[in-house]
């Protein structure tokens, strides 16, 4: 197989473009060829499975079918939500062959494997990654924030220590950063209610912020565009004064920085909470 299937999804094609950019830059450094799935469709996110079971199944299955047609066997889905939807449906395809039939697809779609960004970086390329670190993050205290869908439910994600995962911490350590121990790493930020039920995202966001702040974190590191939008755009609304706000950095931006890539390439200038201060610290 040449190249890794790539499913950017809607967020990375829109408001989370810096996650897309930084991921492509990091893949380039690692010599991984990303092949975007032709004509991929939206995974349906929270809304499809909330109100229409069949639509949720067919949307994600269609993308897996398009990956197979392009000769791909693994699909990297950096967005935690997209990853979880693809993984749920890949699992469902095993029990329910009717889905492939309804799409006029031959059996075997379930063999297309969705990969989370953590699975990709930890299992496939971590040695190559270590070799590329030129700018250590020494002294940077990082709150690794998984949120929900990168890890849950373990039946789908295959994550072992689901209440206290270590995959992101391992990567941050490899970059020379210092992961903090904190209590909210896998709590929900309420992202599915960002538009429709704001009380939820402000309450959850504030609790997550307070927990990170309490243990002296300098930055959040995460891998979900919904978590990013909530934590990066709404700290002001959560009542946190500008000088106390914590930068919210995508895992791939952190890695790219440690590889010596510049802030603009990584989209570090696109955030609401300025990120420059966090990296200034590590230089001194």
């Amino acid at each position, binding site marked *: 197989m040449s190249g890794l299937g790539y499913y950017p999804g809607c967020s990375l094609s829109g408001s989370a473009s810096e996650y897309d950019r930084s991921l492509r830059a990091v893949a380039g450094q690692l010599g991984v060829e990303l092949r975007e799935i032709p*004509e991929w*469709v939206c995974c349906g996110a929270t809304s499809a499975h909330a109100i229409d079971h069949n639509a949720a199944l067919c*949307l994600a299955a269609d993308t897996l079918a398009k990956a197979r047609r392009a000769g791909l066997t693994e699909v990297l889905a950096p967005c935690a939500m997209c990853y979880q939807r693809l993984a749920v449906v890949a699992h469902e395809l095993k029990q329910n062959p009717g889905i492939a039939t309804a799409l006029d697809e031959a059996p075997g779609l379930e063999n297309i494997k969705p990969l989370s960004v953590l699975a990709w970086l930890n299992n496939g390329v971590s040695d190559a990654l270590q070799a590329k670190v030129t700018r250590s993050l020494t002294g940077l205290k990082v709150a690794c924030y998984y949120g929900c*869908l990168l890890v*849950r439910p373990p039946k789908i994600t295959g994550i072992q220590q689901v209440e206290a995962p270590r995959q992101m911490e391992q990567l941050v350590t490899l970059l020379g950063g210092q992961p903090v121990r904190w209590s909210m790493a896998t709590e*929900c930020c309420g992202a599915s209610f960002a538009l*429709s*039920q704001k009380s*939820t995202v402000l309450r959850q966001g504030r609790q997550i912020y307070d927990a990170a702040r309490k243990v002296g974190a300098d930055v959040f590191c995460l891998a979900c565009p919904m978590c990013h939008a909530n934590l990066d755009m709404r700290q002001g609304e959560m009542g946190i004064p500008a000088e106390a706000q914590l930068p919210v950095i995508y895992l791939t931006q952190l890695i790219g920085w440690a590889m010596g890539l510049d802030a603009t390439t990584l989209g570090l200038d696109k955030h609401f909470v300025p990120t420059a201060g966090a990296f200034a610290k590590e230089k001194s």
Partner: protein
Amino acid sequence: MTTVSQTLANLVHQRTGTRPLDCYQCGRCAAGCPQNVPGEMDISPTRIMRLLQGETAFPEKAVEYARQALTAETPWLCAGCQACTTRCPQGVDIAGAMDVLRQEGLKRRMTATTKRVRDIQALHRTFLNSALRHGRIHELFLVIGYKLRTGHLFQDAALGPAMMAKGKLHLLPGKSADTSRVKTAVERLKTP
């Protein structure tokens, strides 16, 4: 009127492979639920499981228990975080049951009707319609569509321009993708 042939508990079993009857009411799902707090869910996820058990155990009151579960705000205020399903010692897929309750509630026209529940339903509808029509979500159109449906025209009004300034919100839609196969498949699965 459509007759209700399936119990909710059976549907949950079919969809998730797990049974509400296995729940022993330990309360762990409620304890770890981010939305089971004052001002959010009206009844706890544990209580939802109890209602589904009642629906099975007491046929004479099944309709009433089902109504209570469907018309609670709880399924709609569930964030889908999967904490409950992950932690249930009995292996019950509570988050999967919430999906079934939302879908069945809409099908039977029996859901909570509070303003916030209608807002949440409007968002899901806007999102799914947009995904099925265009194949991809254009965030600005999603927000506009939602605001038009709900009348929340000024909520987060300041965020839009700020996002645009950061290059995070695009005026024009990007690529769309063909969804004809998906739409056909959804229709086929509807009529087995």
